[in-house]
């Protein structure tokens, strides 16, 4: 993935820019030391690295606004950063950009149980939002795998999902309002603890805009009462296609599980070797979780196992209690770690219509043989959000490029069958150059016109989401405007 060439003109003004930031922020909020800056050179897409010009760690909306005014006046690109867990390079800086990290802004500002919302600063981690309300019997539903570390700011930027969004939806379905600072320092309140916007649904377009429209400093989130209980069932099959057909039948039967997770043979073997969860030796495995009161759980599990039996499963295990449930989830939850033990891997995130699952799995197998790279599949089957993991050796010259080409072919396949490039990780830099596969020029132009309104100078996270050749004019226009301001 290419990144824009850093502006020598901005680099030459580094001293002035740092001084201007130090003038409006507390001294410990501006990081300029080259060693310390290395902590901000990448996110979880760690194959790509670049130290920023500086990093700033404000503590309030007012400090964010003051710092953005400085960067705006100086024409410096700003890359917002939550906890740096993006798998798509959403927080990857350029050498001429300032990283704006919200990690120090993590307070709970307000909780109302009768109105079922919580308002937090955006640097708060996903899991600690649930942590703040769990004693009262509530939780925050979106649960990305990185929920222990990832920040609400990043969740809002990427419209993050998780294993349980089949029932509860993703971030955009659970976000009620934000306080956001625009690139020019304007603070805007969008939405609030009530439902639905009076005018245009700006919140809907801000969520998932990958930090390109503004820096979200506070968020009002919907909280839900915790279910009485939840239990999974594990179902093994001799073929992936059969597992796919079983998923479709479960959904069609009117059961709506909270999660349907899928793992294929290579993934099952790796997880078993790593976590020893006691998984059966088979070609495809489903973990289906249902929620509710004891009787309700039993009833739903009975329906699901009845449907599964019609597909001749080679293994079928209902969890009898919380311990067995934990064991069933153990392998799935350690899937990424297990794959990381045996290889370098690239994790994809395309989504497909559930009905295309068998076809797509077969074609991925064919592509795997064509490229000579192994692939393991683990994904949220209920909503068609696939996570093929392509295994490669990063130390072997040419393998990363080969792996990226394989990945691009899989994503093209997802689009071809009526799906999309990314279901929950975001475009970032990773899928940026494939956007023209999914969208026509007019579709992309319409999206960029939204950014033109929020950030006319294209200074916020400018090298992401859209192919660089498509945004070149806008980014250069912003830079020349900035040069004019600085001059």
């Amino acid at each position, binding site marked *: 993935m290419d990144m824009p060439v850093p502006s020598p003109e901005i680099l030459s003004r580094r001293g002035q820019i740092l001084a201007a930031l130090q003038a409006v922020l507390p001294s410990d909020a501006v990081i300029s030391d080259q060693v310390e800056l290395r902590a901000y050179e990448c996110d979880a897409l760690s194959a790509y690295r670049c130290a920023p010009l500086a990093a700033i760690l404000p503590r309030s909306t007012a400090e964010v606004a003051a710092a953005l005014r400085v960067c705006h006046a100086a024409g410096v690109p700003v890359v917002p950063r939550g906890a740096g867990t993006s798998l798509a390079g959403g927080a990857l800086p350029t050498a001429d950009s300032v990283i704006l990290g919200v990690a120090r802004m993590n307070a709970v500002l307000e909780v109302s149980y009768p109105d079922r919302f919580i308002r937090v600063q955006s640097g708060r981690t996903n899991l600690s939002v649930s942590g703040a309300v769990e004693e009262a019997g509530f939780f925050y539903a979106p649960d990305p795998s990185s929920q222990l570390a990832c920040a609400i700011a990043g969740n809002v930027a990427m419209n993050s999902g998780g294993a349980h969004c089949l029932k509860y939806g993703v971030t955009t379905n659970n976000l009620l309002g934000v306080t956001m600072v625009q690139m020019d320092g304007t603070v805007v309140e969008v939405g609030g603890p009530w439902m639905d916007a009076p005018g245009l649904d700006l919140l*809907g377009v801000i969520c*998932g805009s990958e930090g390109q429209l503004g820096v979200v400093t506070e968020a009002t989130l919907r909280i839900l009462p915790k279910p009485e209980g939840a239990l999974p069932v594990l179902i093994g099959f001799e073929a992936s296609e059969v597992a796919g057909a079983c998923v479709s039948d479960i959904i069609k039967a009117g059961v709506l599980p909270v999660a349907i997770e899928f793992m294929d043979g290579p993934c099952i073997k790796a997880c078993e070797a790593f976590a020893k969860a006691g998984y059966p030796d088979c070609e495809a495995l489903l973990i289906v979780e249902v929620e509710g009161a004891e009787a309700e759980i039993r009833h739903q599990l009975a329906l699901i196992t009845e449907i599964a039996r019609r597909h001749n499963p080679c293994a079928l295990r209902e969890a009898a209690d919380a311990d067995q449930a934990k064991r069933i989830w153990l392998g799935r939850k350690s899937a990424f770690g297990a794959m990381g033990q045996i290889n370098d891997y690239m994790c994809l995130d395309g989504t497909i219509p559930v009905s295309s699952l068998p076809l797509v799995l077969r074609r991925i197998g064919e592509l795997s043989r064509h490229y000579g790279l192994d692939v393991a599949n683990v994904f949220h089957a209920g909503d068609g959000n696939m996570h093929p993991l392509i295994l490669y050796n990063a130390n072997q010259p040419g393998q990363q490029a080969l792996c990226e080409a394989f990945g691009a072919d899989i994503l093209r396949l997802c689009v071809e069958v009526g799906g999309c490039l990314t279901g929950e990780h975001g475009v970032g830099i990773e899928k940026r150059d494939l956007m023209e596969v999914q969208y026509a020029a007019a579709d992309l132009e319409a999206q960029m016109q939204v950014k033109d309104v929020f950030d006319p100078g294209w200074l916020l996270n400018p090298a992401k989401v859209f192919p660089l050749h498509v945004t070149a004019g806008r980014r250069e226009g912003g830079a020349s405007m900035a040069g004019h301001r600085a001059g």
Partner: protein
Amino acid sequence: MNVMRPGTEVELSELIRAASGPVAVRGGGTRGRMAPAAVLATGGLAGIRLYEPGALTMVAGAGTAVEEIEAALAVEGQRLAFEVPDLRRLLGRQGASTLGGVVAENASGPRRVSVGACRDFCLGLRFVDGTGRVIRNGGRVMKNVTGYDLVKLLAGSRGQLGIITEVALKVLPRPEGEATLCLPGLSDTQAIAALSAALGSPYEVTGAAHLPGQGSYLRIEGFADSVRYRLRRLQDLLAPFGVVEEVPSPWAAIRDVMALADLPGDLWRLHLVPSEAAEVVARIGARAVVYDWGGALAWLRVAPGTDVRSLAGAYRGHARCLIGDAPEAPEAPALAALTAGLRHQFDPKGIFA
């Protein structure tokens, strides 16, 4: 009045390219405000184009009648979970509601409190903007974060940015059973406290409304045994509020706000936080009220010309007049600037009335 009836998206695009004066988009004419302008009817852009029950997905033209969509879903035991309100009697309208109109108004019924709004069930759409461009956004899959979410921006935009031509919807299974509990005789404040207690319980309430003078209602849906179980648990939980009895389903009437139909006066719709709702409504002094969404929504009939916004005082939420002369509330300056900027981008000729 001039009525344009494009039969295809291409024809629509050509009409918009040629248009110079104000254009008012009309689906079935059953819910939006009617602007004095040349009418652009979407009835020609109709038809269900894809329905995959196993993937919970339907794609249909914007001019498709909601009735046709609901009938097709019923055959497969599915439904539009956000519960489309039929406001014809309330607003004194004729016609057949269309998918495009429902999405453009982000129209959601009582189940919005638990499953989300219409916009939460829109997976993708196509629209023609004010320059005649055809734009596609989103798709037909459940999870999609590829690029900006213009689907949400268009949902509820009331035709200000473009004319929706096609929508991909997420649909849900119709549950096996349904039951309703009624708590009679509660004050507005007590009623909303009871609804909040129920919505804060794990018993998955999918409707929570209060009709002053009639009763406070809670809906439970799901597998038959589960409905019976949760009904009993809710009765226990709500015992401190007095009598809790099972009643026949009142939800169609609540969805369509029938309690306020055929009454004189202005009609308002307030979005509130439940804990403030009863006080705000008391300050306004309405003739008749229907609370839905656990108190997060209040429909009001007031004397003609009542200045609802100034009577309401400071509160969290917003208010809109549906029958009466009160204009839309002004937005905060920073929001208004963004709205104006977006309207200029998608409708530079300013033709969408």
